């Protein structure tokens, strides 16, 4: 028998749910099973609207639960109110779970009738703010025009990697994210060495302002550690220092 505090690894036994779910489809499978087995009358899931937006729905339809597969951390909603007066199961970010507890203390929610599947959360933001941030600060729309030439790496005067570099190893053309793993890795990797010379923007065949993008990460990181790339030979690269 499972005890409180036990840690188990789980995944959906249904192959379709497991393959479409974000991390093995466990949450979706548990919620669907709770409905099917009559443990609850309703479940709360997020109905997908677009990549930035979802709307919470209360449903007793297993099909709608299965259609909700996939997590959306950028959706800030107060799920606790959907549990009021119902025999309900729902996924909950830490803040949602805390809200349920506070509502229960105030007699609004019956915890005996409420099942919570807790999720981790990296923080939530308003979808419009998220989109604005990605478009204006991280040029997400322009990055979608990347033709994967690799010229920005080739021309980079501070890139010390050879052909087998992380940015190219982790990247695959079969992925079609707007911001590819190639750019993600390079943004991080150049944080301690980018000199904002502008060469990467110069050679970009899609005219993406890559230098500005790299600088968004590099300049604050370098300031925080009082690191001035290319100014002296004595200060080691701060990533190297952190590793040691």
């Amino acid at each position: 028998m499972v005890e409180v505090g036990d840690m188990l690894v789980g995944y959906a036994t249904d192959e379709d749910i497991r393959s479409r779910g974000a991390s093995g489809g466990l949450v979706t499978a548990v919620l669907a099973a709770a409905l099917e087995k009559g443990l609850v009358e309703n479940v709360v899931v997020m109905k997908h609207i677009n990549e930035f937006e979802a709307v919470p729905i209360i449903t007793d339809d297993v099909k709608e639960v299965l259609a909700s597969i996939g997590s959306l951390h950028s959706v800030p909603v107060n799920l606790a109110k959907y549990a009021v007066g119902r025999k309900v199961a729902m996924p909950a970010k830490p803040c949602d779970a805390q809200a349920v507890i506070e509502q229960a203390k105030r007699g609004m929610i019956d915890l005996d009738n409420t099942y919570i599947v807790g999720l981790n959360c990296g923080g939530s933001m308003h979808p419009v703010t998220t989109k604005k941030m990605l478009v204006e600060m991280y040029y997400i729309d322009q990055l979608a025009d990347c033709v994967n030439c690799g010229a920005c790496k080739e021309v980079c005067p501070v890139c010390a990697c050879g052909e087998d570099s992380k940015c190219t190893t982790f990247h695959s053309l079969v992925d079609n994210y707007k911001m590819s793993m190639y750019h993600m890795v390079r943004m991080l990797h150049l944080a301690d060495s980018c000199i904002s010379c502008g060469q990467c923007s110069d050679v970009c065949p899609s005219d993406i302002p890559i230098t500005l993008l790299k600088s968004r990460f590099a300049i604050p990181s370098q300031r925080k550690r009082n690191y001035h790339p290319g100014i002296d030979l004595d200060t080691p690269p701060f990533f190297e220092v952190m590793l040691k």
Partner: protein
Amino acid sequence: MKEMIYQTVCPGCNMGCGLYIRENEDGKLAVDFMKSSSANLGKLCRFGMKLPYHYSKSVSMVDGKKASVEYAVKIASDRLSGEDVCVNVNVALLGVGNTTNEESLAFNKIADRMGTIVNTGMGVYSELPTECHPTVGVGVTLNDIENVNRIALFVDPYIQYPLLVRRILAARKNGAYVVSVGLRDLHLADENRYIDPDLYESELGLDSGSVIITELHPNTDTGWVRRMLNLALRTQAKILFMKPFVNAAGVDLLCKGAGQKGIPEIMDGINEGNIKTLVVLDSDPIELMPDSDAAAAILKKLDNLIVITSRDSPVNRIADVVIATEPQYAKAGSFMNVEGRLLNNVHVYGDNNLPSGTAGIDALSTLNQYLGGEAMDYQTLHNKVLESIVRKYTKPKYKELACQVLDIGPVEGQKGNLIYLYNPFMWFDQPDDNDFVLVNMNMVKKLGLRKGGMITLGSDVGTVNIRYRVENMPDGLILSARKLPVATGWITMVSTEAVL
């Protein structure tokens, strides 16, 4: 020997992207950026960045054994003068435009001497009225694209012609409205349409301030080209036919349009026994045909396969004679890009004792002399090129053309239409990190494809398991940017199923 630096043009397509090739003392190559190049401002696509992998020096061979260039040329002339060779009947010359205008002109002189013509592989030309050729041959300038009010896009610039992306984005910034009428949704388009070709004129809103961007390649359907020309004529929109091969526009102007055979037609001729001798100038039918294995099998039926080339490629390995020339970047000479701009190779730095870059022309000249013709030299050929092939975009002066477009048609059950998205990697059959096909979500659901899984494609010629990427595109299509061993043409009907 010092490092040598050559200013040259990317061989990936007919865009005319300028670049530098650096060759160090060990012969190792690297690409450098030529930021003053009008076509690309130094920017290069994925293929351009990988050019060091593309250039592979050829070796002269006779009957499978290494030979000197002089001996290979002599044997080639012997074979071309043989009793069994009847130039007007069973010999074909092919030069698609992978080399300089000067070498192409020299090849034409050999064809003249032999009483035949050089085929550029674009069979469409012989099927179009000659008054259409200027419009098909040289398009609007790349700068003009940035200043139109509307663009109708019939190619996929991201995969096929990546240096078009910035031109189209610049046009949008300048207020142009971009409509893609392609095979999948394009991020840079304001609107993605999948409409009946009969509705192009009424639905696309084109006028004299617009440009149509489409393409022409050896496997293009003639009916499609005619439809594009009609659309330009009726709407008065400007038109640009993008093309593969660095000098496609140049060889079109140098070669005689009448009687041109397409590569598929030449291969049919060989297969049926009507063509017994094939001479190719920097053109590999094994790379150019959709089905490499089938092409190689057909070429083996030839009595004489003579290859004049600057690259090591599959056709060299089955050729009777290989005449090796210097790499394309080291040749003296010029290329004409898709907008009609003449671009020159220049040796900008390095050893002063460097060969003159005319080894190819010298070999062609010797071959011509063996065949009874006159000697040719680079400067004379270059002057002739400067006199004869300058061309600018001209407004359509042809009349309405009858056309019947190849019908891709709906598919039933588990079938799908596999369509090649031709790009430089495909024309040179060069590997890239693109071992996947593009399908839409309906196909994923219908076949029950797994996330990160594979799809099986099958046809009469084989089966392949391959990864897939999901795109917004019409039902029943499977797009590939690499050659697959199930294809028999530009479009191939294939069976589909999930790999379990």
